[in-house]
């Protein structure tokens, strides 16, 4: 890594003031360390956000859940309220990475981390995300890559929290020099068409300052499943978060979001449509799972993900239907 100046920020305003083309923000530092070591970022200044007070709180109220960006994944996973009322979020946080990493990694860092595509992550490959002309994955080793919207870039979004938060209808507060704005998590994550060098809508002079999850509707339930090759220390092959609202036995609203399949957390709208208006059972869950892979464009080595998506979407719908929160 290159030498850089280290600044312990004491306020969000100070951090925003320090932002610039060669400034990198650091929360838990998990992703930033990897990026520095591979020289994917070469900042002149690293701004440490862990010294900013007040960014590490979790609070639930009638309006919903507020999660500070410095809250660790371990904190979220262990929070009794999150476990009870926002089950998909607790499970997503609790299944990411390893216990050691979950103790350091933050909610904000998890949402803003760069893709783990093994071409992007190596200095040697000048891929499109790094200003090059080639997506090396498309004709290369793509078993862990995107099966949706992979025509420009085949990297998948790495955030497990993103998948759960989109399913839960969360909003993100972004604060810039002139104030804060609130965006829907679903709109925050961006496709390659919106700018190949980025994965989200965070402005160059903005800081993610809060995650806001609306209070669940009465009787709403959620579930999250991560399917990795391994259970310890592995990225998902596919992950899915499901939220369900019901009117009697009938599904009145569903949100089904897939991870590790696209450049963003991928909302499977056709699956949601297939489920709404139906009694939730093996048959409807199977039909919804089938619909979840509509429009997929798998690459040479990753068509197996289609079957995985079908299996875990069906299972997670059924799990959400029997969940208590």
């Amino acid at each position, binding site marked *: 890594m290159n030498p850089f100046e280290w600044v312990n920020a004491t306020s969000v305003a100070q951090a925003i003031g320090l932002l610039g083309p060669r400034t990198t923000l650091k929360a838990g530092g998990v992703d930033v360390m990897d990026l520095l070591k591979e020289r994917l970022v070469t900042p002149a200044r690293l701004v440490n956000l862990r010294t900013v007070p007040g960014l590490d709180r979790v609070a639930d109220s009638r309006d919903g859940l507020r999660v500070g960006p410095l809250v660790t994944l371990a904190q979220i996973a262990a929070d009794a309220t999150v476990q009870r009322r926002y089950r998909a979020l607790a499970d997503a946080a609790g299944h990411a990475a390893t216990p050691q990493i979950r103790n350091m990694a933050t909610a904000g860092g998890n949402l803003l981390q760069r893709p783990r595509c*093994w071409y992007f992550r190596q200095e040697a490959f000048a891929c499109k995300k790094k200003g090059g002309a080639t997506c090396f994955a498309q004709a290369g080793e793509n078993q862990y890559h995107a099966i949706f919207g992979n025509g420009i870039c085949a990297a998948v979004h790495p955030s497990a929290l993103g998948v759960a938060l989109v399913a839960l209808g969360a909003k993100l507060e972004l604060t810039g020099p002139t104030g804060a704005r609130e965006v829907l998590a679903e709109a925050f994550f961006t496709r390659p068409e919106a700018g190949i060098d980025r994965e989200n809508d965070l402005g160059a002079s903005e800081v993610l300052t809060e995650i806001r999850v609306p209070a669940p509707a009465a009787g709403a339930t959620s579930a999250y499943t991560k399917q990795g090759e*391994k259970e*310890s220390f*592995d990225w998902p092959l596919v992950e899915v978060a499901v939220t369900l609202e019901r009117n009697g036995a009938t599904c009145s609203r569903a949100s089904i979001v897939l991870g590790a399949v696209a450049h963003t957390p991928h909302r499977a709208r056709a699956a949601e449509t297939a489920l709404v208006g139906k009694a939730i059972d093996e048959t409807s869950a199977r039909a919804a799972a089938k619909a979840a892979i509509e429009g997929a464009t798998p690459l040479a080595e990753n068509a197996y993900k289609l*079957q995985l998506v079908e299996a875990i979407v069906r299972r997670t719908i059924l799990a959400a239907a029997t969940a208590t929160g």
Partner: protein
Amino acid sequence: MADERTIRVPVGIAGVDLADAERAVLADEPPPLPANADLSVVGKRTPRLDGRLKVTGAARYTSDVRLAGMLYARIVRSPHPHAKIKSIDVSAATRARGVRAVHVVDHLMGSAVLRDKSQEIPSPHPIVRYVGQPIAAVAALTQADADDAARLVKVDYEPLPFVVDVDKARDPSAPRVFPGAADQAASAGGGGGASNVAVTGNVRGPNKSGPGGPPRGDAIEALKTADVVVDATYRTQVQTHSAMETHGVVADWKPEGLTVYASTQGTGTVRDEMAEVLGLKKSDVRVVTEFMGGGFGSKFGAGNFGVLAAQLSKKAGAPVRLMLDRREEHEGVGNRPGSTQRLRIGAKSDGTLVAIHLEAYGTAGTGTGAGVSGPMKNMYACPNVLVEESDVFTNAGPSAAFRAPGHPQGAFAIEQSLDELAEKLKMDPVSLRDKIDVDETGPHFNAASRRRERQLGAEKIGWSKRHAAGADAGPIKRGLGMAQSVWYRIIDLDASCEVRITRDGSVEVLSAVQDLGTGIRTALAQVVAEELGLRATDVAVRIGDTNYPSGVPSGGSKTTGSITPAARNAAFQVKRQLLDQVATLLGAPADSLVMKDGKILVRDQPTRMLAFKAAAAKLRTEQISARASRQEDYGAPAGKPGRGRIGVGGLGGVQFTAVAVDVETGIIKVERVVAVHDCGRPINPLGVESQINGGVLQGISYALYENRILDRNTGVMVNANLESYKIVGARETPPIDVVLIEQYRGRSSTDAGGIGEPATVPTCAAIANAVYNAIGVRIRDLPMTPARVLAALASRGTK
């Protein structure tokens, strides 16, 4: 002819057929060691003597060594898989901050070399043949300075056509990795390949003289006479060693000699190679390996990195630390070669084997030694065996010996084919092996112990309840499988120890042998303690230093079988010195004295005794000492002196696994492993169990996860880390039941064998057989990923 005498030693399997047998031994060999049941320290579960040091971080590994004035180094490596270097400009690097020395590689080690050197592409520098090949190195005051300076070395490459895919490399029109025939000598503990094999394009072979010698009978003709033939093709991936501690050294070149702190499996082999490459006398090179974080066969030599560190140290006049990072570890310092094996097995309708024919292609990158045929040649009775094995050169990092070279690959194929044969013959897989694993006459066979192991393992896993393949309802299918292991009983006569007793009663055992994590430190203490009637903790073990009597390189599962007899012999000899000196004090002849429970006793008169410490205090000199070596196997004809011979009888084991397969996701979960093994006389059963656990885990990891993935378009490894190079973790670790049998052969003063390699050989095959039992479909490709399981299930669906 040396003086000999005859002794009676235990022979057979404890609890089965243990009896005495006569052995002629050299006159100064110790008396026979009774079976473990009659001993106090040897054969008893003994916690590692260095366990506390390790878990508290006090143990000093190579990467912990910090010397005064030490510099840090970084290697410049090729980004190209095949290239000619036109020029190297080190001027900017030399001037960079903190830089004290720069060295350009002029001689590459670890790869095959051209038989006819005049065929090499003309170039001022070694031709680049794999991504990550070392080009030069920089030493500087800090690691950051070295890293920065290495980026300033300007290398002008002329890229050449390359091939990284083993199938494409076999095509006669493929780019040539070497412009002519190339060979690589075998290294200690395996690896390398036969020399003077025909080379066509990138294909080096077929070699028909695999392990166990030339072909037996006529397999091709015999196959035509078989009642049943199983014909299948298996593919295995490239696995990297991925030891916890990476390769590395701290090299300290001083006018009086070179000291190398090395993470190595062979202090002696590193010393020898350093001396040879650097033009030094062996006595001017000292290699120290106090503690070591694993090697699995990849850490015998000086290494390009080690030689570079020594050269940088010489230039800079300061010690140089050069530890590889994880990318370098994956790319350039060894791997288990991949393989493609077509295996045909013919049998009579009663299961008797008629013929085995193997055609195997493997790639060891720029190295050789991708053979897999040990299990085909050494495990089962079969009159007609033909193996035809070829190495395929690719532009990829060279292989190195890896825990039972060739054997997990070969076992994956033959053990699955035998299960398929059993099914065709409507025989139980265990019964089939009872029928064919019967050869007691071949030099490497070990049928008696495996018969017992099958029996014990089948009982423990509940084999009698095994259902028909694919019989479970629902998406989670469970199955049981088993597979066998065979390995050589390798011994090494360059194995020496010194044992000292000092007047204060302290006891030391010294040897250059290194403990690579397997526990030889503790085993040596046990053997010396047993002989002197002490506890293991009473013995100080000083090892891992070439200033001590020459040890044995830890490869081929030969360490315990080679070095513990030397330790016992030395302890026995120093004991005789002690007893000679104290005999008069006890008023009894020395040969009537025994050492037991910290005392010296007169045999059959337990009241006449002297405490060990009191006896030591009476020594006529401050210290007495004896040095001894491993003698030739009892009863074996005297062979050539020195390293690496194969003793009579093999090592082996049988493993049973229980798996659950999710047929909707393709995920395989190993739920239980029963590992039944033999290793001669177990010195420390706790340590043996630990090594078997490790072998099983490495086998699960190989079966399901590990895979070196090279980008097909650039030859760059895409998963050169421990994040996407996937290794078994805590949640993938099943309960492992280790069952050890004690098998005595009466071949040395401790009669110990090894366990490191046989413990990992059968695991992948046992899992594959269990997967078949679960889902009714064979997975013949490693690793058995969800993608492969789902594809296999789908192909059955369409039939």
